[in-house]
């Protein structure tokens, strides 16, 4: 692993050693740890991880070393190959467990047991070892053996029920947010287990369920049923509006997200802004009470028509500037595309976008940066995702103290 240089303070988890076996449902978990300094060893089967087959690919070349998905989720990790289904591979894994603090895995429940690598077995080797499991439904229970891709987590958790418009089916949020959520809660749970170990000693098994994790994103759906016996559905939620008023409008170069009548906003502000653009006459003072806009009807329609015309005259950044560079602010922000985020002046000023070296390509690639700034013990993307088996020699020699001959034998047997 690239050692932090003198200027670079160590991340807060720089003393942690982590084994990462997780698939897409859990891969973000060890990225969170690796980017905060943990020494994460990503373990793949000898032929490479199946995540490497997920596109799109750099240069549109479907090469396992060029999967952008792999790149994004495996930063700052080292990578080794290891066949866990081979008895010698299992022995190597047990030796890695002696070295490690945390293991992260997302195999179907029971799979590790079939290899003799379940929590109890690993715990008997290293009583301080924390095993974090991330699965669609948890390690036990009637659905624990079920097949749970991201969409199943979004559906079964109650989140999808709340997303969309009445005329169309329920729909997914963004980019595999079910997987993301399961992995992020697992990362939180792992650090709780670590805090527990620091206080009491002893590792433990952390069992994270995507369904349970995502269910927190359904907000007050459960409590609304529990309290009022009412089932919330996408028709009455916020797909298009907030505080009863539409939030999404077309503008000159895309879409703008505008909150008219929610807490902290004022209708006076939008009246002022419209007046500055010679639309003051069109503004009806009865709208100063946003209650007039909260129900379907003429007033709501008149107001929205006026706003449609106004927003179409300007670009998203113009609307952001004119909305916020004033005493009474108008809450209008760009609906950002991936391109907008990369090119955002705010992101640029804060150095969110970082250059990462890809020595195998002889170039640097721009990556998204830190989810949080913590300069005392900073987030740091220390290296691009590992190539297949890139750190076999380094890990097996330096950590397990295998000899060159032993490593050659393992390679010969197809174990690594």
């Amino acid at each position: 692993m690239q050692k932090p240089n003198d200027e670079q303070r160590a991340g807060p988890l720089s003393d942690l050693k982590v084994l990462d076996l997780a698939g897409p449902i859990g891969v973000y978990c060890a990225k969170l740890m690796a980017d905060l300094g943990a020494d994460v060893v990503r373990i793949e089967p000898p032929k490479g991880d199946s995540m490497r087959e997920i596109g799109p690919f750099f240069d549109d070349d479907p090469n396992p070393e060029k999967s952008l998905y792999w790149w994004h989720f495996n930063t700052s990790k080292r990578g080794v190959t290891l066949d866990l289904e081979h008895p010698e591979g299992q022995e190597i894994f047990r030796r890695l467990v002696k070295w490690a603090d945390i293991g992260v895995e997302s195999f179907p429940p029971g799979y590790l047991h079939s290899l003799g690598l379940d929590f109890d077995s690993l715990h008997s080797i290293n009583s301080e070892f924390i095993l974090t499991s991330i699965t669609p439904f948890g390690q036990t229970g009637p659905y624990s053996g079920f097949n749970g891709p991201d969409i199943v987590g979004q559906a079964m958790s109650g989140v999808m029920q709340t997303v969309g418009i009445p005329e169309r089916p329920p729909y997914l949020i963004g980019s595999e947010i079910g997987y993301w959520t399961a992995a992020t809660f697992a990362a939180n749970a792992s650090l709780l287990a670590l805090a527990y170990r620091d206080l009491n000693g002893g590792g433990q098994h952390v069992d994270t369920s995507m369904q349970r994790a995502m269910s927190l994103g359904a907000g007050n759906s459960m409590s609304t049923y529990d309290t009022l016996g009412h089932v919330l559905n996408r028709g009455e939620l916020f797909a298009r509006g907030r505080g009863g008023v539409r939030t999404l409008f077309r503008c000159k170069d895309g879409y703008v997200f505008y909150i008219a009548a929610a807490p902290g906003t004022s209708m006076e502000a939008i009246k002022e802004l419209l007046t500055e653009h010679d639309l003051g006459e069109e503004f009806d003072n009865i709208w100063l009470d946003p209650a007039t806009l909260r129900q379907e009807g003429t007033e709501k329609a008149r107001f929205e028509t006026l706003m449609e015309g106004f927003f179409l005259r300007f670009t998203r950044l113009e609307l952001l500037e004119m909305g916020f560079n004033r005493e009474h602010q108008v809450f209008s922000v760009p609906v950002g595309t991936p391109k907008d985020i990369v090119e955002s002046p705010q992101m640029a000023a804060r150095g969110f976008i970082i250059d990462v070296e890809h020595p195998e390509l002889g170039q640097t690639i721009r990556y998204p940066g830190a989810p949080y700034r913590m300069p005392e013990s900073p987030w740091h993307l220390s290296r691009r995702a590992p190539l297949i088996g890139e750190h076999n020699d380094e890990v097996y020699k330096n950590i397990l103290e295998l000899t060159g001959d032993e490593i050659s034998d393992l390679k010969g047997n197809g174990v690594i």
Partner: protein
Amino acid sequence: MSAKLPLEGIRVLDLGWRAVAPVCARMLGWGGAEVIRIESASRHDGARQMPPITPGKDGSLNASEWFNNFNCNKMSVSINLGHPEGKELARRLAAMCDVVVENFSAGTIDRMGLGYETLRKRKPDIIMVSHSLTGLTGPWKHVKGHGPMAAAMAGMNYLSGYPDSEPISPGQAFTDYVVNPHHSAFAILAALHHRRKTGRGQYIDLSQYESISLTTGSSFLEYTTLGRVRERTGNRSSYAAPQGVFPCQSIPLDGKMEDRWCAISIGNDEEWKHLCQEMGRADLADDPRFSTFKIRKKNEAEAEEIIGAWTAGQMAEDVFLRLQGAGVGAGVVQNGKDLLTADPQMAFSGHYRKVQHAETGESTYDGPPFTLSECPLEVRPGPLLGEHNDYVFQQLLGLTEDAVNLGYVDGYIV
């Protein structure tokens, strides 16, 4: 019995309002930290009146199940932070805490006299996190607002919805409930680990805009390396096909018919074969229109139509269980009632917790969405406004009864 909870001995000051910071502090409370919210009756957190409100308790500041669920395991102390003496009490309390969380707009907490530089003079190893909309620095730091605005800015909306239609916002404030508070809770847990090693605290600056943008997966790299702007794809996936939600038999609910849907995702050719068998259409398994992923992706609409014709009229639960029995990824689009009353997996996991609350009676809260084998985590009722004034003022801060009474009279304890 002597084992301690993970965060036992850690005290957290929750200066948050609404969702982001309070939800972050809830994670610490689940972990066993003592979390104290500063609130006031004169300027209370609007969350205390967010729906659902226990029937018959309209007007109470203690009967929002939204608030109580998101503030379980916490204490509440009522201090008027607009009053100089109130600020001083808050600073004294902060000096007894390990972690402070807040989510005012950038710079507000400094103007209130409760900023990091002020607090760390009294408690040098304090850990503090601010959750502002776009960060504490930069040309947009004055842009303030609600979590859903940050979600829109950060690409979540653009990548959600149908390709032939406008971007749509998540129905609930998803980023306030999930994304940002659990990025920041992770950062705090890491900072606590750092403090255990070094004795040093720190200030954490979380920009909701930046944090949410990290949920857009490889779309960022797709733009920086290929110059392509990813577009929303509805319910489809780039590596599973067909994938979508399919209409099932509607059911009566609240006096009207509720539409029901089952999600189905075909991850490989084997699963496609099993789906075809379950549909009684084994002939489609090797049909040249559908036999491989690549070709199914091309003919996805046609495959969706066939599946939809099969699911229509069936109960969503039947489709789900039948397909899962055959190893096919499937799941009912469940609602709050399903999760609470019907889902045997949620019941088995013990996720939902019953609590007894002084004003709402028996209520159900979320538990932490994970199980730690060595330390069951507790869930206790959300605090009444000012419920823990005696504990905080007398036991923690050591104020005399007279001093507390003076606070009430002068209006800084409210």
